């Protein structure tokens, strides 16, 4: 009888101990879950703040850049442009001479100064933020393509599709700067013969693609996060991110490069 009682007691100790251990284990798991949830929340908040900080920094950089470009544009228009115009005027007022060589030099100089004035005016327009904002994205891109075409090395084409509408001015400016950067890359590195810009507007998004038939570029180093490669491309990507657009780039050797920007048209805010 005493043995049975002891056995029963032991049984109760085992069951009680098991339950106590299980409760303890359950508490440890519960504590871990709660702690990690709080930690996750903190990590997300930190990430959000970091992202906001980066966006603000980028936006400030862009504003400073735009201001600088505007100043340069004004400087070109007001000072250098004026000086060249005066030089041209002076050249025009030089009395005619019998010296053919001198006369030819004057004519050549007039042509060179005229070309410089036109080129500088184009450059001034390209750089001027207000002018781009006024013209609108489509017209500004058309204008840039016209300038490229004038160089005589690359054939250009602009295809616009869908219901064309004006976007937020700030967004248009950022998109235009991305397009400009892409054009610069094509002119400098691609050795392309043809350049096509395709803009498609739908109800929900605007898709802008720039395609060339140049020598292409190896994009694989871009996947290495710490690589210094492709600073310009990363910059374009960051700019697109700033306006909530998706930036992608495809390229293969000897098959050209294509850049695609998809901007959702729902939220028009930066």
């Amino acid at each position: 009888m005493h043995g049975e009682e002891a056995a029963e007691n032991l049984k109760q100790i085992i069951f009680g101990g098991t339950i106590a251990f299980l409760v303890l284990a359950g508490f440890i798991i519960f504590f871990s879950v709660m702690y990690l949830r709080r930690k996750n929340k903190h990590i997300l908040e930190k990430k959000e703040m970091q992202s906001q900080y980066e966006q603000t920094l980028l936006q400030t950089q862009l504003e400073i850049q735009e201001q600088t470009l505007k100043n340069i544009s004004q400087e070109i228009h007001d000072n250098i442009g004026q000086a060249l115009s005066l030089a041209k005027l002076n050249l025009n007022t030089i009395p005619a001479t019998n010296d053919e060589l001198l006369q030819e030099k004057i004519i050549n100089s007039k042509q060179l100064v005229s070309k410089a004035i036109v080129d500088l005016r184009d450059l001034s327009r390209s750089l001027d933020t207000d002018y781009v904002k006024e013209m609108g994205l489509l017209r500004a891109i058309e204008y840039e393509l016209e300038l490229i075409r004038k160089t005589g090395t690359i054939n250009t084409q602009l295809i616009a599709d869908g219901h064309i509408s004006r976007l937020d001015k700030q967004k248009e400016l950022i998109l235009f700067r991305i397009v400009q950067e892409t054009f610069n890359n094509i002119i400098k590195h691609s050795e392309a013969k043809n350049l096509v810009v395709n803009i498609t507007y739908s109800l929900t998004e605007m898709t802008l693609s720039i395609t060339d038939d140049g020598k292409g570029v190896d994009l694989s180093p871009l996947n290495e996060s710490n690589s210094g490669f492709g600073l310009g491309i990363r910059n374009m990507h960051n700019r697109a991110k700033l306006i909530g657009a998706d930036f992608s780039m495809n390229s293969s050797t000897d098959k050209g490069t294509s850049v695609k920007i998809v901007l959702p048209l729902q939220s028009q805010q930066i």
Partner: protein
Amino acid sequence: MENFVLKHAKEQLLAIYHKSIVFQFPFHIYFELAAFLTSVVFWYKIKNTRLRWFLPFLLLIVMVELYGKYLRNEHKSNAWLYNMSVPIEYLFYAFIFQSYFKTKIFKLIGQWFLAAFSLFVLINIFFVQGFWHFNTNILKAGSFSMILFSCFYFAELLKQESHIRLLKEPMFWIASGVFLFNTGEFVYTLFSDYLIKNHLDKARHIFSSINNKLIWVLYTCFIISFICMEKRRPKI
């Protein structure tokens, strides 16, 4: 007369019901079987991860349980069967844990455990407790080690600095299951030698009632881990 017939028919039906194949197996086997089937169904998710080893492991567990049940029904000892399968279970969990550990010292402990525990099992079987009696020493050492490994895993988890979706993390569920199972079993294993020596749990009712319910918890956690996990790219 009519009552007698009805009563008789009812008794007959109940007898058939109890003898039917479904109820011949203890309930916990269905959890093990369900875990195995879940691993088969979600093979597409686990095939490129370390969890792919769960499929053959769970198949082995189901087969061991079925054969163990068969031996019990035949009134033959099945201790030798569990003396083989229980160490495999512990070694398997230890292998999974150590492959998940990121901290060098934890990984090293896990790797040393695999070698040391294998040696301990062999020594215990051949020189200490024998092959034909249930090896409680293995149970004690194994349970304690699994609690320790689960704690290592939770410690690593709490130290982690990146954002993780805990409920979608299969190893979290596996570690929780292993932790609860072994913590629950630990008290019994502490007293197991005393109980066996004094014939206080001869029919192993205490062990079964604790162990079987803990099996529900363990294999439910495995099932959740397979279902909840997100499909990943190859890791190893």
